[in-house]
C-alpha cells in the first residue's frame, strides 16, 4: 500500500482495491451458487390474463393451488392487470418518467396480490411485501403453508429506463422469475390465458403454430411481434444461474397447474 496521506483504509479481501468494472476481475468472481430454497415453486398469476377475469377464472385456480399445497411449496406472485395499463396511460399523458410509472403500477399488483392472499388465508397463506420476502420468507414457509407476493419487483423510482419507449420493462413476470432465481427455486410457472407460445398471436392468426419448448436465445432471435410474457424475461433467462427455465401454462384450464408442478410437458417451456 502506498504511503499516500489520503489513501483509503482498506479491508483485506480478494476484491480490495480492484475496479469492480474491470472485466477480468468480474470474470474471476464466477463461482457455484447455493440454492437457498430448492423446494420452492414460484407460481405467477397473470393480471390481465387471469385476475381481471374475476371469480370465474381466479377461484378454480386457487382451489388447485390449495389442492397441491401438501405436496408442493408454492409462493404466488400476482400481476397488476388493466389498472396498470390505465395508470400508464394517464401517467404517460402527464409526462411522468419510467421510475414514476413503475412505482405507481406496483400498487396495482399489490392490490391483486392482497386479494389473492385474502382468498388463500384460511389455507394458511400469508401476504409478504418485498422487505418481508427478504427477511422472513424461509421462516414464513416453515410456519405458514405458502406465501403470496407482489409480482412487480420493488425497483420503484430506480426502475431501469427501457431502450425503447417509457413503459417499465420489469413487470410481474420478471419479478416472479427473479424471486425463483435468487432462491434457486425448483420451478417458475407463469399462468396466462393462452396455452403457451405460438409463432404468431393465436387470437388474431389461425395459422399460428404452437411451440412446446424453445431456448431463450432462439426466441429472441425469432423477433416475434408480440409475446405472452415480458421480453426482458428472456434476457434474464440468458443469465440464469439457478432457475434455468420458465413454463408458460394456461391457468384457465383446470389441471394445468398440477401438471406443471409435476413437471409434465404442458404449455411452453422456455429454457436458458
Amino acid at each position, binding site marked *: 500500500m502506498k504511503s499516500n*496521506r*489520503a*489513501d*483509503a*483504509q*482498506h*479491508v483485506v*479481501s*480478494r*476484491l*480490495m*482495491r480492484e*475496479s*469492480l*468494472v*474491470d472485466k477480468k*476481475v*468480474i*470474470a474471476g*468472481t*464466477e*463461482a457455484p*451458487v*447455493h440454492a437457498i430454497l430448492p423446494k420452492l415453486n414460484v407460481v405467477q398469476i397473470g393480471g390481465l390474463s387471469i385476475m381481471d377475469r374475476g371469480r370465474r377464472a381466479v377461484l378454480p385456480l386457487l382451489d388447485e393451488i390449495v389442492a397441491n399445497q401438501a405436496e408442493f411449496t408454492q409462493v404466488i406472485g400476482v400481476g397488476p392487470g388493466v389498472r396498470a*395499463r*390505465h395508470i*400508464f*396511460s394517464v401517467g*404517460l399523458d*402527464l*409526462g411522468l*418518467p*419510467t*421510475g414514476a410509472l413503475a412505482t405507481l403500477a406496483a400498487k396495482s399488483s399489490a392490490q391483486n396480490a392482497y386479494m389473492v392472499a385474502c382468498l388463500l388465508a384460511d389455507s394458511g397463506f400469508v401476504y409478504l411485501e*418485498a422487505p418481508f*420476502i*427478504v427477511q422472513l420468507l424461509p421462516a414464513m414457509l416453515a410456519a405458514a403453508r405458502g406465501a403470496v407476493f407482489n409480482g412487480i*419487483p*420493488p*425497483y420503484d*423510482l*430506480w426502475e*431501469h*429506463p427501457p*431502450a*425503447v*419507449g*417509457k*413503459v417499465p420493462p420489469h413487470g410481474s413476470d420478471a419479478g416472479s422469475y*427473479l424471486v425463483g*432465481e*435468487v432462491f434457486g427455486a425448483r420451478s417458475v410457472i407463469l399462468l396466462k390465458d393462452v396455452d403457451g407460445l405460438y409463432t404468431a*398471436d393465436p387470437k388474431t392468426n389461425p395459422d399460428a403454430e404452437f411451440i412446446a419448448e424453445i431456448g431463450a436465445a432462439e426466441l429472441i432471435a425469432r*423477433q416475434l411481434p*408480440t409475446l*405472452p410474457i*415480458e421480453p426482458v424475461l428472456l434476457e*434474464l433467462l440468458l*443469465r440464469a*444461474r439457478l432457475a434455468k427455465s420458465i413454463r408458460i401454462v394456461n391457468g384457465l384450464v383446470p389441471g394445468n397447474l398440477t401438471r406443471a408442478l409435476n413437471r409434465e410437458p404442458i404449455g411452453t417451456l422456455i429454457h436458458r
Partner: protein
Amino acid sequence: MRGDNSGLTELGKRLISGSLSDMTLQRATEQTPDFAILPWVNTVKIGGQSIMDRGRSAVMPLIDEIVANLPHHKMILGIGAGTRARHIYSLAIDLGMPVGVLTVLGTAVAWQNAQMLQYLLAKHGIAFLEPEGFASLPHYLMERGAVICQGMPPYKLWEENPEIGRIPTAAHRHGLLPDRGGLWRAQDDLCERRRRALHRRPKKGPGCSPHSAHQRAGAPGAGPGRSRGRAGGSRLDADRMAHLRNSVRQWLKPGQLSAALAGDPVGTIIFNAEPKAAFAAAAP
C-alpha cells in the same frame, strides 16, 4: 363508465387492449411529453472506496464544501459502498450466495456510509432518506438544500444476474446516476471520485491515460475499467434527457464540487448527444 373506453387517449386505448411486448406500442410511448419532476436538483455521488474509505482527510473538506453550497444549490447526495462491500462480496461468493443476496449485503454498506455522512451533516439540518421516504424529498430539498441517500438502488433480492461473474451490476453504484437523473432532470450528475479524469486502468498507476475531457457514453474507448458503474453507459444511452450530463469530478482539489455545481468545465463530462438515435439503433 362507458363501455368503449372513449375517455382514453389514443395511446391509452392501445395500452389497455394491446400487448406491452409490441415494439410499435413501445415506440408510440416515445411521443408523450417529458415532465421534469425536480428540474433544479443536482445529484452528487460520493464514492465509497474512492472517498469515504479515506476517512477524515478526504471527507471533511468535502463536508465543508457541501455546507458552503447549501444556500446556492439543491443536492441529492448519494453515497457508495466501498471496501467493506468488496470484503462481503468475496466472502458471500465463497459461501455460494446468489447475486440478489450480494445486493442486499452491499446495499447495507452504502447505507452505513450514508448514515456516517448524515452524522457529519446533521447539525446543518440534513436528513437521510431511505428509498421508502423519497416522497418527502422535495420538502427536505426546499427546506434544507440537500438530502442524503444510499447510492445503491433498492433492488434487493430482485437484482438481475450480470452477464459475467457474480458482482451485482445494475445496483452497484448505478443508483444515483442516469436513472434518477432522468427522473429528476438533474442539472448535473456529479461523481465525486478520486480520479482527475476517466482513466483506462484507474486503480493501477502506470499506463493509465485520461480520456478526452468530453466522452460520449458507450464510446469504444470507455475502457475495461471506467470509474463509473459498469451499467452506467447503457443507461445513459437510454436516457431521454438530452442535456443530462454525467460528470466525473476529481475531489482532491477543494473547489471542484463548487465549480461543478456552478457548471464550470472541471473533470470529465459524459453525455448522450443523440438519445433518440440511440433508441432507433436499439429498435429491431
